[in-house]
């Protein structure tokens, strides 16, 4: 098992390197650089050249790449040109809102998605199925920001139950934090819950036809137990991969939601960094997200073995 984990981590290294290099090149090969943004339109070419020299941007690309990469290997993501702070620190300060938002959204997605999906499968072909599928179709079709605006309108403007926008850190208390994040989390989680509902439904429809489900029913187990313990548990295994991918996707996809609800998270930091062409910051954020992606996938694969004893080590030895 430990050998398997170590091998997977080693396999992830080239992927991360490729991603890091791709971001590096993409930023530098597209027109515009941070000096335009730092100096404004009136800057003289001499001043710009001087600044480029100070920032090390006049050196050949392979040299810049090697310098940056050497720092990354030592755990140093460089310094943000605009924030004048280490990238690691800048990301860390914005991590809490995004992490909390992502976790809450994922809970919304899983709770809503699984219950809608199971309901639709158990009541297959009835109005409940149709309604659940309509909700999920609507969820996939409505743009995230529009869902967000509607939620703000109903729950914040009309009913006044929840704040319109903003963020309160965890240090102000969990309830205060969740109160501010509830609408954004529903906004962000709704799309994924819709997706999950559709997949849960089709997985469950397949599993409910299996022989062991019929057997479970024929020995007289209550329907509840058959659905939750025998059918859902087996349907869950493939769904786990999707949930893992969703978690990673949410981290990146949070940026529109963060903008709508004015949450000071990593997503907004990234947009800002991209627009200002803050090279080190963009590279750092993308690398962190890619790393999380890899880590989450690894966790999912390990969990697979826990949920389904048939997969476990024999499979992992071959991969």
């Amino acid at each position, binding site marked *: 098992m430990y050998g398997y984990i170590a091998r997977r981590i080693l396999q992830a290294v080239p*992927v991360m390197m*490729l*991603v890091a*290099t*791709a*971001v590096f090149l*993409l*930023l530098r090969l*597209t*027109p*515009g650089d941070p000096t335009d943004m730092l100096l404004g339109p009136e800057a003289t070419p001499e001043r710009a050249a001087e600044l480029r020299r100070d920032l090390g941007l006049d050196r050949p690309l392979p040299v810049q790449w090697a310098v940056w990469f050497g720092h990354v290997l030592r755990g140093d993501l460089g310094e943000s040109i605009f924030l004048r702070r280490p990238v690691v620190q800048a990301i860390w300060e914005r991590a809490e809102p995004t992490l909390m938002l992502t976790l809450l959204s994922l809970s919304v997605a899983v709770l809503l998605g699984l219950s809608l999906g199971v309901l639709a499968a158990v009541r*297959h*072909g*009835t*109005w409940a*199925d*149709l309604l659940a599928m309509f909700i999920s*179709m*609507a969820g*996939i*079709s*409505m*743009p*995230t*920001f*529009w869902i967000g*605006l*509607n939620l*703000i*309108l109903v729950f914040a*403007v009309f009913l006044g139950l929840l704040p319109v926008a903003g963020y309160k850190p965890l240090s102000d208390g969990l309830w205060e934090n969740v109160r501010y994040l509830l609408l954004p989390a529903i906004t962000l989680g709704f799309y994924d819950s819709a997706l999950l509902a559709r997949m849960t439904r089709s997985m469950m429809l397949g599993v409910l*036809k299996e022989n062991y489900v*019929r057997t479970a*029913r*024929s*020995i*007289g*187990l*209550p*329907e509840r137990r058959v659905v939750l313990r025998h059918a859902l548990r087996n349907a869950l295994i493939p769904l786990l991969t999707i949930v893992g991918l969703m978690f990673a*996707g949410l981290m*990146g*996809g949070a*940026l*529109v939601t963060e*903008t*709508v609800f004015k949450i000071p998270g990593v997503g907004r930091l*990234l*947009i800002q960094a*991209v*627009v200002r*062409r803050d090279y080190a910051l*963009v590279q750092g954020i*993308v690398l962190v*997200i*890619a790393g999380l*992606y890899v880590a989450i996938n690894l966790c999912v694969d390990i969990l697979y073995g826990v949920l389904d004893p048939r997969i476990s080590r024999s499979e992992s030895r071959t991969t």
Partner: protein
Amino acid sequence: MNPSAAPVDLARCSDAPTRSRWYTGIVQRNAILIGGATLLVVLVAAALAPVLAPFDPNMVKPEIQFIRPNAVHLFGTDNFGRDLFSRTVYGARNSFLVGSSVVLMSCLLGTFIGLLAGFYRRLDTLCMGVMDSLMAFPGIVLAVAIMAAIGPRLQNVIIALGVVQIPRVTRLVRSVVLTIVHTQYIEAGRAIGVSDTRILLRHILPNCISPLIVQGTFIFGLAVLGEASLSFLGVGAPPYIPSWGNILGEARVYIRDAPYMMLLPGLALSITILGLNLIGDGIRDWLDPTSVARRLEAQQRAQ
């Protein structure tokens, strides 16, 4: 075994298909029709925008700003006194332009790269390496990055969203190529000396068409959504273009005082995407042999 278990309900244990109501069948079987009809309405609105729109979508009239929806201004007016119905109708035009251009661009380039990557193993590692690293970005982040680099113009929105979709098309086409490149008829073609180009275009490409149609429908929807998101974030179409994203971006500021500004334009956007998703799902089920079997089964059941 639990001796106190309830009496076995034999009906539950039978292999007979689960009960299905007549209306679910109608909705499922007609997904393409419902989606198509929805989309047709939007398409007609887009095509006839100059006829349908009662006002110039960019005409600024400060004296009539923030008018609620009424008989003259069906969707109301915005903060500049522009007629929102006219802007929404022109927005449909804009969305169709962006959607179809992105589909065309990503499908052409993606198919080209995918065919080459699947067919020539030496190109595969390089092509897929580049494609995978493009996919490592969340789509919207990549689009924002490209927009920041090349500036807020409508053509650039199309380029940015097209680049986001190319890797997805490439992966799809490559996977189709890989599954058929070793089939006997391709090898037979090679053996009698058919050129690579001819094999690719005449014998492999046709196999990619139906998955491409499904993917294209979804890309169209994603492109319309992407354009709206980019414009909403302020890095998409320039503000003077009446795009759905621009309308909603402006409406967000006045959500307290003029909520109608975002309701109807947003509904237009959602309905368009819904139509596209229904068509995509419908075509996919229609092309999928396993699901055809399921449908036949359903029909037999109904008889």
